[in-house]
């Protein structure tokens, strides 16, 4: 039987400027510490979160991040959902390639984030925006 994901708590944070990045990372860390996530997993989650929040600022004109504590069976975790109303991504497969960047940077944010988390989901509609959702389990 497939386990259900249950949302234990919900919080959200608006991201509008570069100065929001550090406090946002701090907030994610608070939740990760609260559920007892290991330091390595915390570091992976916060690094992934930092990449996605930067993308949201750089390419999506900012947006909102939903921060949820979830549980599935015996494991707890953090789910982060990044939503922006920016230009969207026309070719997601291309954007997910290591080294691809339309912004002259390293192009490892999306593919690297996917490697750092347990679940990764990206949806984008050109002209409407992008939503990226990630889950890191406490013991994952």
């Amino acid at each position: 039987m497939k386990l259900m994901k249950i949302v234990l708590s919900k919080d959200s944070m608006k991201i509008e400027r570069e100065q929001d990045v550090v406090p946002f990372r701090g907030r994610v860390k608070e939740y990760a510490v609260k559920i007892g996530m290991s330091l390595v997993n915390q570091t992976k989650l916060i690094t992934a979160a930092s990449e996605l929040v930067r993308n949201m600022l750089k390419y999506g004109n900012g947006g909102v991040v939903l921060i949820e504590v979830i549980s599935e069976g015996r494991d707890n975790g953090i789910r982060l959902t990044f939503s922006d109303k920016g230009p969207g991504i026309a070719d997601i497969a291309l954007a997910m390639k290591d080294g691809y960047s339309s912004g002259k940077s390293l192009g490892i944010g999306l593919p690297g984030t996917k490697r750092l988390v347990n679940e990764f989901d990206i949806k984008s509609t050109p002209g409407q925006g992008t939503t990226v959702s990630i889950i890191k389990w406490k013991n994952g």
Partner: protein
Amino acid sequence: MDRIPILRMGKFLLVTIQIDLYDRLATNLESDLVQMVNKTEAKGVLIDISALSIVDSFMGRILGNIGSMSKIMDAETVVVGMQPAVAITLIELGLELKGVHTALNVEKGMELLKEKIASDEEPPDETDEDSTE
């Protein structure tokens, strides 16, 4: 504070990053360091990142830029004190710190810089090694 202090110690420049950096601070550090290397003709740059709880691709790129630009001006860069969890994460993220050396701590980093500079500066020894004692 919108500048990270850069200390000069002989031929070396030393930077200790004490807080998780805002982007502006990080980009300022990059340009300040490059200017300082140029002005002081420093031979080595040591950056202590032991207080950084994460390094993402933005920060990684800045460290890499400092390394490659210093190299052009004939200075070596060593990054020291990276936390183990950060090192593990960087590998999975896929970030290579190209153009910078790494060392465990400040002492080891200084040793490394001194070795690099010694091997750069000293012309090949006339007396070979086994005959010097």
